[in-house]
């Protein structure tokens, strides 16, 4: 079979790919923002002296990390309405991705918590900070800085996983690419451009993160 490359048909729809990319990024931002809150709560629970809290955090991580994201997404979109919770496709995907990223971030923050020197925590207790004040004013800032590189990697991972929203017809980059592929039959061109956009976005995000890491001094 003869096949020669013609990118024209793909460039004609490039704006759709770009808007798809923006939707994917937005989904990842919302999900990781919520996931950060979930991950922080679960990480503090995971290192707390109370056994039930530790078990709960462990259960959350083990449950979510071992489930395919697509199953979570389909549950949120198709199954929740059955028990009276109707979310639109954006909400259900962002919710599923938030829950998913929260489990990964729990591990990231837990490692960050263990990296805070014991002596620094004692110094905070010594000047009379309560346990909560110590966690908020001393432990969390140090831990967040130490966790920044892993936090960035998790964000990149979640951005790539936003492609799975295509399965419930969210018009993000992968969904648009598939449509252009079917409409134009410019198969190689479409997937080259789509993949190139993902890679370019990942490279840009990684560079921004490195800039952020430089801006805050490492402890």
């Amino acid at each position, binding site marked *: 079979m003869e096949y020669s490359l013609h990118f024209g048909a793909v460039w004609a729809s490039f704006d759709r790919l770009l808007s798809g990319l923006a939707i994917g990024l937005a989904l990842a931002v919302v999900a990781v923002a919520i996931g950060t809150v979930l991950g922080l709560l679960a990480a503090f629970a995971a290192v707390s002296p109370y056994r039930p809290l530790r078990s709960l955090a462990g259960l959350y991580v083990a449950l979510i990390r071992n489930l395919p994201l697509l199953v979570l997404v389909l549950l949120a979109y198709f199954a929740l309405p059955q028990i009276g919770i109707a979310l639109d496709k954006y909400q259900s995907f962002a919710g599923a991705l938030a829950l998913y990223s929260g489990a990964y971030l729990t591990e990231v923050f837990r490692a960050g918590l263990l990296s805070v*020197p014991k*002596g*620094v925590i*004692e*110094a*905070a*207790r*010594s*000047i*009379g*900070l*309560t*346990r909560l*004040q110590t966690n908020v*004013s*001393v432990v969390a*800032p*140090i831990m967040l*800085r130490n966790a920044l590189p892993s936090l960035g990697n998790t964000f990149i991972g979640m951005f790539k996983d936003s492609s799975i929203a295509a399965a419930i017809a969210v018009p993000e980059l992968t969904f648009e690419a598939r449509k252009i592929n079917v409409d134009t039959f410019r198969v190689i061109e479409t997937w080259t451009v789509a993949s190139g956009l993902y890679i370019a976005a990942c490279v840009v995000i990684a560079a921004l993160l490195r800039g952020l890491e430089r801006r805050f*001094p*490492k*402890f």
Partner: protein
Amino acid sequence: MNKPQPLLAIRGLTKQFGAVEVLKGVDLDLNQGDVVSIIGSSGSGKTTLLRCVNLLEEYQGGDIVLDGETIGYRSANGRRHRLGDRELSRQRAMTGMVFQSFNLFPHLSAAGNVMLGLRKVLKLPKAEARAIAEKWLARVGLAARADHYPSQLSGGQQQRVAIARALAMNPKLVLLDEVTSALDPELVQEVLNTVKGIAEDGATLLIVTHEMRFARDVSSRVVFMEQGRIHEEGPAAEIFGNPKSARLAEFLRNTRH
């Protein structure tokens, strides 16, 4: 005439780490303005004693009374109960502690380190906390470094910030735990001079140290600990000049080369 009530009274303090008895009944009084140094070989329990006074360690027996208040535990129906987090925090704020390894907050500037307790524990407004922090940083000779981060300071400077952080809280008592042990030799003197300065200002200090000459210079009283007990105590001149027990004499021989 009533004897004045001591600022700190430690009564029959015992502590175990598992099966190991670290403190075997320690009694010690400090009056307002006293500067007491604790000397002794490593493992004698002196650092643990300090950490108990700052309520960083739990202890199994005895009482610590600070300015008339029994701290750390309450007794009910003949049983001891560790106090809650809020009470412990309030009591810890009454003593300041300076650690061997500085333990500055790495994410805060020198001024930020001093201000944290003033803002969060004493609830002072920001401007007032800043003014107090600057005053204390000036007192330890670091006025120009207020906005430097710990990673930008030398070990000696970090330790002086830690001293300012402890003193800015206006504690009744300051605990110093081997504050020069982690320093390079050329940085030791600046920290010792700072401690000497605050002693002359009239602060009440309980010091654990390996610097015998410093202990002799600065202390009103010296305590020699050995195997979890106070083995000998007395005025500095007497402890160093005329040790009574053979054990203390031997310890001093081994530390003074």
